[in-house]
């Protein structure tokens, strides 16, 4: 094999990909990191270097001012809290629920394909679009959910706060927790299809003989599920948990979908905002020095948090996953 001659050829094939990857992935990664440490950063002045006046210079100094700012000023911590709630509530629920559903699906023969198809529908939909449907479903007046509640004799709730207004046009009683419930429901609704698909295909790849052996060993269906099926499914469960964690930390579209671009009804803007919402919000602000720099810092913080939890997840997986 003339390896030598082929060398440059391979690079030729990779050239377009590499160029694009460097420009739009590798360089940005490094650059964002750097920006986070440039105090009073103004991206419009790129190339004008360091200097005292941010109307003319790119940034003022190297330092942690951006980080300090996001943690002390504004509501970053609130957004972090919202994000954490999303992560630690929706991920376990959606993983467990999808596991139960997948096991149930696997145990039936008739209509299995039908249910499988139905359950996958949310995946092909637009997050923004269906989010708007949810906001209609949970509308205080004329919404489906409130109607069902009334039918069952309960009290209809002001879920999203959008359509009850006071004289100033501000929304009445939007409760953070009620809105959170709607948000979590929507996120779970979106999260089920992918997980069900992965878990179901994992289930179908388990050799039937293990089930037969377990039956001979006197195990009933519940024991089989807990001691045979779930352990054998642990690689998929671990994978789903890790990727769901990461995805949940980055949650943004669902919030905008239900609550609008301002992440909350009038008078209660940014009520449901997440960390990523903050990043995008900062990017579009007109106050330059409080813009990109802060966004970059927030992105870096997010990145670190994600890496931290991914590391924990991986460590836990190593201990408990059987391949």
């Amino acid at each position, binding site marked *: 094999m003339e390896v030598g001659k082929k060398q440059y050829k391979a690079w030729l094939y990779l050239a377009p990909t590499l160029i694009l990857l460097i420009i739009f992935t590798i360089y940005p990664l490094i650059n964002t990191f750097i920006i986070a440490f440039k105090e009073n950063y103004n991206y419009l002045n790129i190339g004008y270097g360091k200097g005292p006046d941010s109307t003319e210079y790119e940034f003022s100094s190297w330092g942690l001012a951006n980080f300090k700012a996001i943690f002390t000023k504004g509501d970053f911590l609130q957004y972090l809290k919202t994000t954490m709630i999303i992560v630690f509530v929706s991920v376990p629920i959606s993983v467990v629920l999808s596991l139960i559903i997948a096991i149930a699906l696997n145990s039936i023969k008739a209509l299995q394909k039908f249910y499988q198809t139905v359950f996958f529908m949310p995946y092909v939909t637009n997050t923004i679009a269906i989010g708007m449907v949810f906001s209609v479903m949970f509308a205080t007046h004329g919404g489906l959910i409130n109607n069902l509640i009334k039918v069952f004799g309960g009290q209809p709730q002001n879920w999203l706060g959008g359509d009850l207004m006071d004289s100033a046009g501000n929304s009445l009683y939007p409760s953070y927790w009620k809105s959170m419930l709607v948000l979590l429901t929507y996120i779970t609704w979106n999260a089920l299809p992918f997980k069900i698909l992965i878990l179901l295909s994992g289930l179908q790849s388990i050799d039937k*003989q293990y089930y037969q052996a377990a039956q*001979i060993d*006197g*195990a009933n269906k519940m024991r089989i599920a807990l001691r*045979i099926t779930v352990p054998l499914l642990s690689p998929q469960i671990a994978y789903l948990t890790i990727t769901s964690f990461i995805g949940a930390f980055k949650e943004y579209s669902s919030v905008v979908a239900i609550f609008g671009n301002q992440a909350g009804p009038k008078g209660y803007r940014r009520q449901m905002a997440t960390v990523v919402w903050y990043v995008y919000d900062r990017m579009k602000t007109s106050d330059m020095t409080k813009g990109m720099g802060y966004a970059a810092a927030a992105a870096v913080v997010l990145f670190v948090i994600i890496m931290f939890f991914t590391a924990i997840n991986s460590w836990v997986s190593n201990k408990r996953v059987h391949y």
Partner: protein
Amino acid sequence: MDIRLVNLTKVFADKDSEVRAVDNLDTVIPSGKLIGLLGPSGCGKSTTLYMIAGLLNPTEGQIFFGNADVTQLPPEKRGIGLVFQNYALYPHMTVKQNILFPLQNLKVPKAEALQRAQKVADLVAIGSLMNRKPKQLSGGQQQRVAIARALVKNPDVLLLDEPLSNLDARLRLQTREEIKRIQRETGITTIFVTHDQEEAMSISDEIIVMKDGVAQQKGAPQEVYNNPVNLFVAKFLGTPPINVFKGYIKDGGVYIGEDRILETELPEQEVTIGIRPEGFEVNEDGTGDFTLKIKLVEYIGRDKSVVAENEYCESPTFRFIVDADIKNIVDGRVIKAKIKPHKCFIFDKLTEKRLQ
């Protein structure tokens, strides 16, 4: 506890075709014995085993454990042990956990369970491997773990599906002795399935020969060997295999070609004749009733294995075995041999049932 199979039938049907995997099997498996279910692939032996285990539901018929009709009873309630052909050890559990699993399902208290597990592990000689995972074990070791797991709950019935087929030749001999030993020590009614007649013959108390879902013959190995009930059974047992010839009966004698080899009282008819390899008596002068031409003599130590030709044989050549000391057996010679009557079986040409 004995097992009774009554009219046991299993039919696999899809839209275009139907397969009768097991056809009206009617037999009793005596208590405490080691029984071999023997037959070629597709004869229904594994299907029968799985129906006894409860993993397959019979289309018709019943299964009795002792006096209890267990036909509709689900497998986890039958109290049997099953060793799968591929062992089916739980890959995510250690050997110890694999063996403990059945006891945990029976809610046996932990201390007692550990004790029993260790006992049975020692019985099959894997007591020192308790903390390993299945993928760290060799094939033979995995199988013994599977046996231990099946035995630990003291089942009334032990089933083995082709236990030796995944092992190499050396291990096979060793393991079949183990199986025999374990069965003797525990006294459990044991059924194993195999397509290897030597295996079945060597360790079974009784064998059941099956073909196309139908039981052909049942009995002690030697009995089935010496008195096959039809041509199939005769051909299936014995190594080297029985030699089959076309012949006829005339004037109270059995003829192959011109040679009158045996006396008989059967009426005149065309018949199929099977002669065991050890059924040929050759003397040094080459005299006898049956003509054959020697093609090749293989000296295999204690015996001579001779490949010969006879125009009425169903295959181009046939094989017989004689004592190595007999001289004058050389390639190319045409000699005559005497046929030992008890090694020669006459079968009806059409039904293949044994006539004599």
